[in-house]
């Protein structure tokens, strides 16, 4: 189907980055390798390279997120791009201006890249389908669908610590149903060859037919953590609490919160990840969040390198072939 290749140009190079689903292993590895090169920039006095000089990156956020927007902004600035932050509140959208209208207006300002966050699944796909052909679209989170750069940050962190993917057991714990990060992680992990991907949570937070994503479903944390190499804790939105999905924070923490005792069920060299921000005492206690197994702060610093990598890859001129690059 046409849309499946929306992310790639005719030389199978990355054109937009909308989802980790359907991308080949080589391409995901290339993102990780390129990000690895960008990590050296933090050693420079002037933490900036001229790759995207003269380009304009628009952070188009239909959903508030200071953290994600800041890392994309920093990544773009370190690539020497000009950055425009546009927050479209729900109220402005309801004044009758459609998403397409907003898009056309921005295109008229000669932008080169849209970094899009939107509360609706498929919004980044929609924008990529309808924007001018020279524009690249990065999905910074669409509804419950995908958050591919966050997932690649986590892959980067896992590779740094575990070096290989083919022998790992990875557990993702929490609100899988509403998590775009989890979906992108699952696709990336399975493409990179992780043989045992587990999702752990109560039935109310596990999506229908979850096993069709290629994961093992556990409702019991103790069973799910048994012998895993990597634990990814998901953020639990406060509004899920005290609803029909969960009775209370207290009960959630008691059953699914990560503590030292629960951590002992995993492998001795397990790493603990969290896309942040952490609800301490809900998803995990502080002893784990700040403990020796936690790599949460590293995830944050890797975020900029991954986003620089994806930005420079998607902004590479469309349709150049491998041989032209080698010349």
């Amino acid at each position: 189907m046409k849309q499946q290749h929306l992310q790639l140009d005719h030389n199978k190079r990355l054109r937009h980055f909308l989802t980790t689903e359907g991308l080949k292993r080589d391409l995901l590895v290339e993102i990780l390798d390129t990000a690895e090169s960008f990590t050296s920039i933090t050693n420079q006095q002037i933490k900036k390279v001229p790759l995207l000089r003269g380009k304009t990156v628009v952070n188009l956020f239909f959903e508030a997120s200071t953290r994600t927007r800041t890392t994309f902004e920093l990544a773009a600035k370190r690539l020497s791009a000009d950055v425009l932050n546009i927050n479209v509140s729900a109220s402005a959208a309801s004044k009758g201006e459609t998403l397409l209208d907003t898009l056309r207006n921005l295109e008229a300002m000669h932008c080169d890249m849209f970094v899009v966050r939107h509360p609706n699944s498929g919004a980044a796909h929609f924008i990529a389908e309808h924007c001018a052909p020279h524009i690249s679209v990065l999905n910074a989170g669409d509804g419950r669908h995908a958050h591919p750069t966050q997932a690649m940050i986590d892959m980067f962190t896992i590779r740094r610590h575990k070096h290989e993917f083919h022998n790992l057991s990875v557990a993702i714990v929490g609100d899988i149903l509403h998590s775009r990060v989890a979906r992108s992680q699952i696709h990336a992990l399975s493409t990179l060859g992780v043989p045992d991907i587990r999702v752990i949570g109560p039935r109310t937070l596990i999506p229908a037919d979850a096993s069709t994503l290629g994961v093992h479903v556990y409702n019991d944390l103790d069973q799910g953590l048994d012998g895993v190499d990597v634990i990814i804790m998901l953020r639990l939105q406060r509004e899920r609490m005290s609803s029909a999905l969960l009775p209370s924070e207290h009960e959630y923490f008691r059953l699914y919160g990560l503590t030292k005792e629960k951590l002992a069920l995993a492998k001795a060299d397990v790493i603990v990840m969290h896309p942040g921000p952490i609800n301490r005492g809900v998803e995990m206690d502080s002893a784990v969040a700040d403990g020796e197994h936690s790599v949460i702060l590293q995830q944050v610093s890797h975020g900029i390198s991954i986003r620089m990598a994806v930005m420079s890859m998607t902004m590479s001129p469309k349709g150049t072939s491998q041989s032209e690059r080698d010349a």
Partner: protein
Amino acid sequence: MSQGKKQRIHIRNGLVIDPANNINEVRDVFIAKGKIISVSSDAPDGFNADIVIDASGHVVCPGLVDLCARLREPGQEQKATIASETAAAAASGITSLCCPPDTKPIIDTAAVATLIHEKAQAAGKASVYTLAALTRQLDGASLSEMGALKNAGCVGVSNAYAPFKNNLILRHAMEYAASHDLVVHLHAEDIDLRNDGCVHEGQISTRLGLAGNPAAAETVAVSQILALIEQIGVKAHFCRLSTARAVQMIARAQYSGLQVTADVSAHQLHLTDMDIGYFNSNCHVSPPLRSLRDREGLRAGLSQGTISAICSDHQPHEADAKLSPFALTETGMSGLETLLPLSLRLMNEGLIELMPLLASLTCQPAQLLGINAGTLTPGAKADICIYDPEREWQLDSTTLRSKGQNTPMMHWEFLGQVTHTLRHGQFVFQLD
């Protein structure tokens, strides 16, 4: 009639299929004064045709009767109009269609029903029937003036997609409609279980991160309605079934003697949630496209007779209505022009014989609506569809006549194309 002299027409040598009269053979059809004179091998005495149509190699059947087509008028003329959509219907062999009450304003007064009937009459391309609102303003709480609406020509009552406030109101509405001998057309969907779901809950909703509408949203509602019908003994019609399980439940109810009928939209017999691909908003429909197993269940329901009508569920939209992220787009697809070709595809795939297939497109939906249509019985209004079963064509923006270009079947190849449509003995469509 204001439309000039009614001509005498002789349709020669076509394969006449008239399910109501169990006719399935090559015959001639003779028409005069807008009515069928006879279906036979020889001309009636003294019949001199003004026009002779050679229908050799063509199928001649009653004009199709479509249980549900939204014409968007009054109130949403940016999407379509009665004139534009009845012309598209005529080009698709549809001569009678029924419009649900969710126009703007809603069909809860005789004036709105009359307006639609008059506009359709003026357009002259198809006979347009209306379903009246079951509750006032479709609020699901207070009864509409069904007696007056019936007098204004409404052929049934429905709450369209709007929910009932509770089952007690549904019970009273069904009882009141029964006392006026009006058939209640019901969309069985539990709105709480739907939970804003926009696609079938399953593998696809999980993969795309779209809110899922579980099959139970339909089956729970069907079982409640069936329990009510059993208690109060009324007739009811289930609209646009989407799940295999609901088909089984209705089959069992029919077997146990309840007066319940059901229809399905043509697209549900062909598409599944897999067709959504990557957020194809033209596949955003209500009820949602479901699993392959559900589709097979719906097909079985049709071939076994549990489902007695196939309808277009035509919902034309302006382009903007579909140009948004998936969940924000409006539901429904443009369906008039794919009703017959999608149905014929079921026959070509070996699911059903032509005669029962055409029955579900002609006399059976006519019977559900209680209208005189869908047959070639002598004396009946001459509403006729002639199609070439061997003719291949492609649906594209040049062939699509509806103002609604919103169909996921754009560029599909079809076998079987309508060449002539007659309504009341007059040509309302001729190909080329």
